[in-house]
């Protein structure tokens, strides 16, 4: 079979993942694969860019697909060369460098670009961003910001969303006085409600970040480099550098020019195919599925998988159903998790809320029909792992709503021998209770070794030996010397030819009179019954092998019953 050609436009987290998924499904036997990447690197993990900014990582640390990977897998990569034109009639793409590649199947995974609003004074005379003004999107952006911040004193980040706060935090860490200006009334308005946003703001301010909400930036001030910002309300702020993190816009122009339907992004069906052309797919931030454009990694990778299943025929029915949105982030040590909606939308929506502003803890869950549809966790987020899974899977929630917010139930505490209930299990390996140890002591085993031999407590993994010793000492201290002595019933133990005694797990005894091979006289049988009635023996068991077992005999009655049964058996 001749291979077809798969051309992938975009080498970011969606495009490269899609190719990996295609290869994992045996796609190298089906396709020759060619990729174009705008940035001059292999594919890197954009999630970890803040590490570049704060200097904790190098570019190598966040690379996912190194150049060697492309070589090994036989994927041809044109890096640092963007595709400028798609000719759907000829089925070719053309790059800025003039490379023309024909395709059988095309995947557009061009992602998105930082959105820099048309502020006055943003660009210099040559149409480039003014020195000191940065977008926050790519590896190069990060390198530029980090280098500039070393000499800057005061930095302003425009945008109080996930990326903006991340950038502001990093700038603070680089030694700048760090400010955030945000258009909306509270920080992280997509992830938090007003209460949560307010608490986050106070917490961040406590860490030295300066937050300005409800501020619409109008102008970047400064002649040949940034010197400040002006706002719609007439106020200004002076600064040495500005980082714009005001959202992203899909890179979908290329689709538009190729004649594909583009609304907010390239419109695709459930197979991630363009609705206009079955040989063209789109995944990631440049794709619009059922009216939604996704910007988080998990949905991108879900889409990549559907694409790979579909294009390789691995699963021709593969369909993307949309993704649920949840995020976690950590800003200046404040941990935050957010999922789904932030406010109830339906009068039946149940809201469970807890706030402890002094500690910066805020928890809010929105439950609909017993399923989680929204949640905010801030400060103390130990339940985030569980809740995000329940949200992802639409899993039924436990009735106890409090348990959704907190880990209930204290850790088990060490109890003294005295406090321990008699039925408490001491030796798990051999099923020995506190009561059984007490009984062994009462029967004359006065040191731990003897108790262990008699009950097998501590004779498995041995981890309870300390406890067995403590309990033996405890019982030995309080046990009076034995007056009447059935001699030491081992466990299980055969005392003589006539009666067998055995310690049960609950510390009571089992007594088995000898009814040899099922033979006994009517008088003996009657006598056994009389003894059982007389001493209120709780249970009589007719056992296999023609024996009768009196079970649940308390320690105090043991000797007396013993004697009477012995007589009965001897009759």
């Amino acid at each position, binding site marked *: 079979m001749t291979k077809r050609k798969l051309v992938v436009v975009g080498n970011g987290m969606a495009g490269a993942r899609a190719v990996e998924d295609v290869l994992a499904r045996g796609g190298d036997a089906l396709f020759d694969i060619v990729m174009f990447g705008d940035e001059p690197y292999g594919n890197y993990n954009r999630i970890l860019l803040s590490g570049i900014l704060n200097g904790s990582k190098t570019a190598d640390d966040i690379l996912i697909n190194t150049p060697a990977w492309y070589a090994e897998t036989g994927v041809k990569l044109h890096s640092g060369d963007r595709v400028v034109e798609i000719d759907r009639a000829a089925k070719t793409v053309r790059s800025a460098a003039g490379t023309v590649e024909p395709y059988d199947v095309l995947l557009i995974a061009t992602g998105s670009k930082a959105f820099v609003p048309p502020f006055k004074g943003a660009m210099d005379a040559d149409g480039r961003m003014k020195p000191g003004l940065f977008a926050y999107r790519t590896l190069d952006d990060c390198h530029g910001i980090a280098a500039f911040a070393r000499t800057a004193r005061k930095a302003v980040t425009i945008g109080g969303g996930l990326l903006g706060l991340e950038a502001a935090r990093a700038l603070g860490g680089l030694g700048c006085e760090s400010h955030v200006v945000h258009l909306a009334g509270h920080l992280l308005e997509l992830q938090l409600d007003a209460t949560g946003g307010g608490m986050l703001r106070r917490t961040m301010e406590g860490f030295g970040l300066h937050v300005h909400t409800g501020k619409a930036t109008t102008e970047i001030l400064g002649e040949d480099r940034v010197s400040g910002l002006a706002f719609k309300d007439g106020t200004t702020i002076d600064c040495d550098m500005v980082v714009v993190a005001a959202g992203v816009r899909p890179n979908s122009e290329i689709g538009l020019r190729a004649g594909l339907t583009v609304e907010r992004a390239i419109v695709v069906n459930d197979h991630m195919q363009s609705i206009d052309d079955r040989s063209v797919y789109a995944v990631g931030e440049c794709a619009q599925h059922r009216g939604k454009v996704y910007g988080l990694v998990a949905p991108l990778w879900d889409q990549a998988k559907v694409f790979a299943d579909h294009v390789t025929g691995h699963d021709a029915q593969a369909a993307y159903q949309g993704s649920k949105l949840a995020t976690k982030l950590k800003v200046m040590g404040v941990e935050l998790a957010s999922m789904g909606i932030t406010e109830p939308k339906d009068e039946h929506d149940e809201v469970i809320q807890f706030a402890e502003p002094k500690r910066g803890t805020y928890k809010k869950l929105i439950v609909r029909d017993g399923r989680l549809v929204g949640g905010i966790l801030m400060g103390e987020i130990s339940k985030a792992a569980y809740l995000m899974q329940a949200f992802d899977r639409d899993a039924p929630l436990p009735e106890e709503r409090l348990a959704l917010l907190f880990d209930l139930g204290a850790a088990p505490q060490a109890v003294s021998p005295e406090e321990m209930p008699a039925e408490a299990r001491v030796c*798990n390996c051999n099923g020995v209770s506190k009561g059984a140890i007490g009984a062994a002591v009462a029967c004359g085993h006065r040191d731990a070794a003897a108790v262990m031999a008699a009950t097998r407590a501590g004779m498995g*993994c041995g981890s309870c030996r300390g406890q067995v010793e403590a309990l033996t000492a405890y019982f030995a201290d309080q046990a009076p010397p034995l007056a009447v002595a059935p001699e030491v019933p081992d466990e299980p133990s055969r005392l003589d030819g006539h009666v067998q005694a*055995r310690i049960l797990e609950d510390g009571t005894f089992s007594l088995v009179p000898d009814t040899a091979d099922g033979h006994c006289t009517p008088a003996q049988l009657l006598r056994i019954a009389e003894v059982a009635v007389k001493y209120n023996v709780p249970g009589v068991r007719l056992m296999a092998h023609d024996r009768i077992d009196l079970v649940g005999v308390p320690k105090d009655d043991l000797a007396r019953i013993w004697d009477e049964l012995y007589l009965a058996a001897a009759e």
Partner: protein
Amino acid sequence: MNHHPGAPAPSQAAALNDPAPVPVDTHCPYCALQCGMTLVPDAEGRFSVAARDFPTNKGGLCRKGWTAAALLVSPERLTTPLIRDTKGGPLRAAGWDEALDLVAARFRDIRARHGADAVGVFGGGGLTNEKAYLLGKFARVALGTANIDYNGRYCMSSAAAAGSRAFGIDRGLPFPMADIAETDAILVAGSNPAETMPPLMQYFDAQRARGGRLIVVDPRRSATAQRATLHLQTTPGTDGALAAGLLHVAIRDGLTDPDFIAARTSGFEAVRRIAAQHWPDRVERITGVPERQIVEAAHILGEAATAMVLTGRGPEQQSQGVDNVSAFINLALALGKAGRPLCGWGTLTGQGNGQGGREHGQKADQLPGYRKIADPRHRAEVAAVWGVDPASLPGPGLSATELLDATAPGGAVKALMVLASNVVVSSPAAARVAENLRGLELLVVSDLFLSETAALADVVLPTAQWAEEDGTMTNLEGRVLRRARAQAPPPGVRTDAEVLQALARRLGCAADFSADAETGFAELRRASRGGLADYAGISYARIAAEDGVFWPCPDDDHPGTPRLFLDGFATPDGRARFAAVQPRPAAEVPDDDFPYWLTTGRVMGQYQSGTQTRRVPELAAAEPSAFVEIHPQTARGLGLAEGDMARLTTRRGSIAVRTRLTPAIRLDTLFVPFHWGDGQSANALTHAALDPISRMPEFKVCAVRIVRDAPPP
């Protein structure tokens, strides 16, 4: 120790044939620890178990070990062959000649009509090395069938494949278990030795007492997890993602050992790339393990001077079992924690002779000495020992699950011989297995008791057990041990070796089938010589003198090999191999119809399918029936209280069991132990999705629904 009251006297014949019984040093009949014990006779000749200070268990035994002697006097013991004259008819007692003649004649007939591969053989990880070896030889030489496999496929096959892939050799532990006490950090993934092999815990306890740290990965806060420094309570089926996440943190935070990676491994780059895709946030969402715990675990392992990574059935019994284990091996390798003293990856295998059982030829693709049946050189070596033409040996056959699938109507297998295995209880989607076996032309089962599988057979052969015959076992450390005969089998019972010898003769096979264990072992030694699992230098005398011998032991002067890989790995270039494994979701995940995860496992008082332990009165009393563990919060929402009957249903089947409420399990997960049959069989529920490499079924993960079985009173 004395006998359980109610045990019958030993048979008269045994007393007559044997000299007066004496104490016998041997090993436990159950799990892969093979704890040393002494069988001590009383005045009447009845044995009881006494502690024995053997270097593995040091006198410790769990309740299964202590009560093991009850098996020798069980009133339920089969003592005569049974034959079913018509399908659906009753089993009747028969003589040995009649039974063996019948089996041989039917085998010949089926072979004539459908070809040699139509007769399948299903063995067990409880068979001694000698019997496992003999069974493999019987299948290949006397029956000429390719189709032999064993229940070890359900147990350690994923670990075996991953271990071989990484290190070039498959031995449960590359070090003696006592080393566990000496290492600084341990990660145990999906194993619960505190419940399943209690005497092993003394080493973990000693390790922690020394200041060592223990990390346990388990969806349940198991008895082992309760003793851990850190418990990672994973979502079932997410082990591979967790391991990749741990590696991500290790790389991110500079905890890896670049010198080790460069000098002693290959293939790291591709693994690094996959780890790069598993940052902690993402792994938290997949696994349900909080990010800070993932980070802490990576640091505990990475910062320790020495560390071990141990896996169990949790990650192994999945449709990505091999990859899960590889992911944990990758972690150990990247941290430089392998091939050095007190370091390494190991698997805590389950069955008594799971290790030896897979080395000597009862696996579909293997010949004795861990040789490959598809390798012409290996075939020639073994054929020479057997005195047959290499070309006469069949090729690789069907794996366990596929072998049982092939017993379906219209399938390739028309007759099946089962030894030491209760497949009707232990196989996934068990109801279908039972149905298929009922429809076979001939089902022959050898067992001590009328197990659920034996009850379906056309011919049942009563076999000798444990203390009634000689043989060797290889425990999870690779230590070859001797199980000595303490008494004769009851009259009417024969050993499997005697049966195979008699059947081979009736099938007209010219090759030797010795029924004597030591003679068989001598042949096994020759057949394993030069193989990976080389037993050539091991003898019964050495085992007795040295408290067992570790393989490989190529000649009489060789000391054996307690610790593997210190000088290099068993790969062609001596380097350990990373495996670029990309974690996948489980084959079946919860949805609206089946909203919970189901996972399965063991309880202390029972062993495997329970054929033996359910017949020990003290064990039966301690754990009389199956149950479902459920979180109290989950139970409350479903209107279930402690001890209620609950009905569990999956796409394969449905069972009713009592609830056991415990906050130690995840809110979204249910647990059912698998030791019971009939209406309580956990494996009526489990999923037969297979690992593509090991063919291990997905016992540990599927989607389940739970409701109250009866209306509230």
